[in-house]
């Protein structure tokens, strides 16, 4: 699945042992993916490889993080891996939706790659439909987290200090009072599947998600990436943290082209 970039000089495949894998779920508003774009762009991360997979719709374009003419011509595809060894961070960006019936094989292959590359933990950025919130969730912060039991042991204390809110479980059968509570992440794509699989396979995984709706999700991405930063401290955040994230050049024209002057 993972194909390392040919960096020339016979360099060995990158080593992710002990690294934190940061990745998005393709979810409502694409918030996770936008947040990952901000991380890769701001930290100027180097591409170290890609996933050769038949599970995602194919796409290709030129470098979405280009800052100048010289670095704008590197091809970019639907699932790429970037790394920043100084922060022991490896980031997977997913740029297209899943092909029907292929999300399960993708999750299986992904988790087995996580285990074989010996990543210490996985942080999944995701989102959930805001309109599905219950009365209590409508008040207060729209941000939630989840930790697998193995990660809870490792960082539970730190998360408590941050005063974060855990994603609530909902009744399996709404309306019936004494029913089991289950995890429900509507609009979250593969979030729930990855999380439940990680729990049962002993993988240390954290899910950070935001309640949102489709629309201009750039502000949601900023909120989510700042939330992530409270914990992982990827950038210094004493001053206004939002101003420190660098918007990639590919975010231009998200809502269409310029208007024809003849219209007016």
């Amino acid at each position, binding site marked *: 699945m993972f194909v390392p970039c040919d960096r020339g000089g016979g360099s060995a495949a990158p080593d992710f042992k002990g690294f934190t894998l940061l990745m998005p779920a*393709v*979810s*409502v*508003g*694409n918030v996770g993916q936008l947040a990952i774009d901000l991380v890769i762009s701001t930290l100027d991360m180097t591409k170290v490889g890609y996933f050769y997979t*038949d599970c995602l*719709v*194919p*796409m*290709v*374009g*030129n*470098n*979405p993080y*280009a800052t100048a003419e010289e670095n*704008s*011509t*590197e*091809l970019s*595809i*639907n699932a790429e891996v970037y790394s920043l060894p100084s922060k022991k961070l490896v980031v997977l960006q997913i740029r*297209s*939706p*899943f*092909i*029907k*019936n*292929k*999300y399960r094989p993708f999750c299986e292959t992904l988790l087995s790659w996580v285990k074989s590359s010996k990543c210490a933990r996985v942080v999944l950025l995701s989102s959930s439909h805001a309109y599905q919130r219950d009365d209590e969730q409508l008040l207060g912060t729209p941000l939630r987290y989840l930790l697998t039991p193995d990660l809870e042991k490792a960082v539970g204390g730190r998360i408590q200090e941050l005063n974060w809110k855990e994603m609530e479980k909902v009744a399996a059968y709404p309306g019936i009072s004494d029913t089991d509570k289950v995890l429900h992440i*509507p*609009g*979250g*794509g*593969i979030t*729930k*599947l990855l999380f439940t699989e990680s729990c049962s396979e002993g993988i240390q995984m954290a899910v950070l998600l935001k309640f949102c*709706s*489709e*629309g*201009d999700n750039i502000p949601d991405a900023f909120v989510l990436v700042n939330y992530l930063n409270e914990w992982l401290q990827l950038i210094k955040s004493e001053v206004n943290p939002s101003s420190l994230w660098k918007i990639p*050049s*590919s*975010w*231009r*024209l*998200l*809502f*269409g*082209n*310029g*208007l*024809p*002057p*003849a219209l007016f």
Partner: protein
Amino acid sequence: MATFFGEVVVAPSRAGLDEEEEAREETPEDREIRREIEKKREIDVLWTWQSGGCAEEPLVCSRFIVAIGRNAAAFLSSFILDSVCWEVVGVVKLWNEWCRTSSTTNVLPTDSFCLFYRLISDPTVLLCQCSCYVAEDQQFQWLEKVFGSMQKKGLQVTILSTCPVADYKTQESTLTLASPFLKALKTKEFQEQVCCPLLEQPNIVRDLPAA
């Protein structure tokens, strides 16, 4: 979501995963139906030199030109292909909701087809005209089966395709843009001169040309 002019547009869920799809466990009947559909959607690549029992040698290919879509296929028919210099060497047989191709090599320009031609004077030059739509779940299979038959060392691949001008993202309006126009994407291994400007971000290519 609301657009520029304030009208509300129903945006399909970008989560890409239906709730029911996620929650429902597959019954044996579902699995059987899914397997049958997968078999029906399988792609067959038939080369003219293949006959039963013959060991398949990988095709030696130096240049492979692929024209995807009716416009690109028509371009090749109008300007490149003729029965004197090119011979048909293969065909792709597939079915999906949008089209069906057959294993016949005698096609009309209005048919959906996917044919391979070889330059008679230089048999390492291969050309593919793919006017049929290859569905999302078939694109990877197409790729593996076609390129799987080829020896890829020193191979140069050129992909020709078209996109509507309305899909092109640019600062100005596409109304005032001089069209048609050419844009290109190239791998870093491609060292030759490209005949047109490179495709700028945030434009992307998808489907079979991207695969």
